[in-house]
């Protein structure tokens, strides 16, 4: 297997297929978008791709990350080259069940190392930070509404504030459990009347009431438990009134110092969130796609405080009942010093936008090129394909 793993080799795990052979158009097979669900999980703070999925088979790994090797001794492998982080218990099971597909050495068009600009670019889908005011998930809502059988799919963020990726023209909602006492019904009605002549506040108000009604039996009062968040977002995606598109954020990935404990903690949260979400979706899991991404990767080598600094290439995860998983999709750049981006970061060899747009297009049965152009305009690359089982 290792002989295949030179630079410019596509690693396709147990299936050992290159990405080119996976490109089967599925547009004809696609069902109406109304029955399909999408969850976007944004890992804020630059999650370390080389910790998520460690390239233990790369001869350069030990020199850069020798201190972490022991953590990966008994964890699930993909193609003997990559090892999953030990905290990814449920993600590991999904990988073995062929429902989780990893992407590695990928990055957006952003090549600096600011979290805020990097997240801005990943969320807006622009080619430069702050070039675009709305988010790509919001534009996806618009795109689905335009499709022949389309109606505006409900979109929701599990957050107090609507994150940038979901902001824009299409109406979206946000929800977070609250510990505040419920206001009286009479007062609520008067507030509605107070906002009647104010389009912005009236719109916010009606969406707030709808979402809270759906979460009616939620007894929690905060968003701190990631597992419970996974179950909650699944519950908000049930039935004809439920959201079809949702977004969850998970922080705690900016591991500049003492990365080992901090990363494991965040990884356990992600694992719990995804497991609870899958369980909560039940039979709908077959029609559900989950995309997990972060703004950029981290430095290949551990720094002076046993952490990693802001880097470039990183990992992403595509998950779902229909996903052709159990593989890693990567054009592995290698870890020799000369291969590192600017001598310090995992080199990006795949456009994250091509992954996101390609997966979304296949899942919803949209034209891939048009999807990429709408969600991530100005990209030179092509949308990737082969994410879903035929």
């Amino acid at each position, binding site marked *: 297997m290792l002989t295949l793993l030179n630079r410019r080799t596509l690693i396709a795990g147990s299936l050992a297929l290159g990405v080119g052979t996976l490109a089967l158009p599925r547009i004809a097979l696609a069902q109406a978008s109304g029955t399909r669900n999408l969850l976007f999980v944004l890992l804020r703070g630059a999650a370390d791709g080389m910790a998520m999925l460690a390239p233990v088979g790369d001869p350069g790994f030990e020199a850069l990350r020798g201190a972490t090797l022991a953590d990966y001794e008994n964890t699930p492998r993909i193609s003997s080259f990559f090892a999953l982080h030990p905290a990814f218990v449920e993600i590991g099971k999904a990988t073995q069940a062929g429902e989780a597909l990893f992407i590695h050495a990928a990055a957006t068009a952003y090549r600096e190392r600011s979290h*805020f600009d990097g997240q801005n670019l990943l969320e807006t889908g622009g080619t430069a930070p702050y070039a675009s005011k709305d988010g790509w998930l919001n534009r996806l809502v618009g795109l689905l509404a335009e499709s022949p059988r389309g109606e505006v799919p409900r979109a929701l963020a599990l957050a*107090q504030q609507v994150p940038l990726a979901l902001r824009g023209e299409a109406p979206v909602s946000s929800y977070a459990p609250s*510990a*505040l006492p419920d206001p009286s019904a009479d*007062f609520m009605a*008067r507030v509605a009347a107070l906002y009647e002549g104010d389009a912005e506040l009236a719109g916010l108000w009606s969406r707030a009431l709808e*979402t809270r009604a759906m979460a009616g039996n939620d007894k929690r009062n905060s968003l701190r438990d990631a597992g419970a968040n996974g179950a909650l977002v699944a519950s908000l995606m049930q039935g004809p009134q439920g959201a079809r598109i949702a977004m969850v954020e998970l922080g705690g990935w900016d591991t500049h110092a003492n990365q080992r404990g901090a990363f494991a903690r965040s990884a356990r949260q992600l694992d719990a969130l995804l497991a609870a979400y899958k369980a909560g979706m039940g039979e709908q899991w077959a029609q559900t796609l989950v995309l997990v991404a972060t703004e950029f990767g981290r430095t290949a080598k551990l*720094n*002076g405080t*046993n952490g990693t600094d802001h880097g470039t290439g990183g990992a992403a995860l595509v998950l779902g009942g229909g996903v052709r998983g159990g593989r890693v999709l990567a054009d592995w750049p290698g870890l020799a010093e000369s291969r590192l981006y600017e001598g310090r970061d995992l080199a990006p060899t795949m456009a994250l936008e091509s992954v996101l747009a390609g997966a979304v297009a296949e899942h919803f049965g949209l034209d891939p090129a048009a999807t990429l152009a709408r969600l991530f305009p100005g990209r030179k690359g092509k949308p990737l394909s082969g994410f879903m089982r035929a």
Partner: protein
Amino acid sequence: MSRASIALNRFGYGLAYGERPPEDARRYLLRQLDDFDPAPAAIAARSVSRGKTGETLRLLRSLRAKVPEMGDPAMTDQRMTDSAPQSPRAATLAGLPPEYRQQLTEARRVMIDDLAARTNLAIASPAPLVERLVHFWGNHFSVSVGKPGTQFEVGPHEFGAIRPHVLGRFSDMLKAAVLHPAMLLYLDQFQSIGPASTAGQRRGRRTEVQGPRGINENLAREILELHTLGVNGGYNQADITELARALTGWTVPGIGPIGRFAAAQPSGAAFVALAHEPGARTILGRRYAAGGPEQALAVLDDLAAHPATARHIATKLARHFAGDTPPESLVARLEGDFRMSGGDLASLTRTLIEAPEVWLPGPLKFRSPFEWFIAAARLSGIERLEPQRIARVLGELGQAPWRAPSPAGYDDLAASWAAPDLLLRRVEVAESIAQASPAEDIVARADAAFPAALSESTRTMLKRAESGRQALALLLVAPEMMRR
């Protein structure tokens, strides 16, 4: 909006209960520059570094060594900052050794008392414009709790490093804010060690040593990107690394064996010469001679005077007062003042007050949750709120002080705060504030709070309310209260 309403609401935190609206809007604002008290009695004892961080970190390390199965005590500390009533806090606390439990409980109490002191100062202030500036700069130099020890320092950071300088020099505020123990902890500077320093060399030889043994560039990067030049300010990775080297040695007192060699600094920080990377530095093409703590101070002075910093600060200040996309003419006006005056923030504030772009009828901004809460508390006349309650409510509203999700601080954009669920929370909080506030003459109060700026529809709804309390609650969430 009328000029009086703009002075009250866009510049300040709104009319306080019992206050009369200003007759001369401009003079009302200029007078606040004289009336502002940088060191009021309520925070006199809260503005100096508490020097407890070293102690906290030592406790943490001994705990890690003693009870590895405890899990990660840093996580414990994270949970300790939880402000929800049924948090996992109690359960986590119960399993801890008494000395650590006591330290965590104290840290949380101290932070919540600081938070309440800050909030109550703004609610009662006769100079709400300047209080707003304190919060603006506090957010510019954002620090956040979560790392062990920071809860003791975030209050002193604002009271001791920000507040005294809001009408002073930017360079003084910059040096005080980024070299304060709160920032040194928050952005990992306290454990950054120069590889060629005596401490770095020693550690390099002893391979079994756990813990820090090199540079951490986190603070250096954020100083350039967030605090001074701004993201397109013309610096590169080499400048970041050089600044990180210049900053080595700056740490908090009382940590680790090298703590014995720490020299106290005015801010409550410490400088350990043994950890400082020796040699001269070159940053943005300028050379800085080898030296001790003054090497970083010299770089910071130059960064404060850099044209990109003037532009960056002017843009943020303009956005705060004149809209999410502020007019270029205002940015240029503020930038020019910043450069001409050498970063004199009183001069900058006067220029802001005189700028026509800030007096457009508007409204120009959607109030952030913290702003809305201060304005609602001022207008309601509610009696002193309990510290615990203030912390809880601000968390529920979505903008708890010292908990911003990133070193960039909280966003200053309507898109961040005009969200469905956040609006619902304001309605919930308004109803509960109104229950505990004087509720007479609400229509007259509304007219005073928004002079010649109250809409007919709001007036009608206030008149139709079934009680004074309900009218007050409605006023607190009226469209006039949501924007400024």
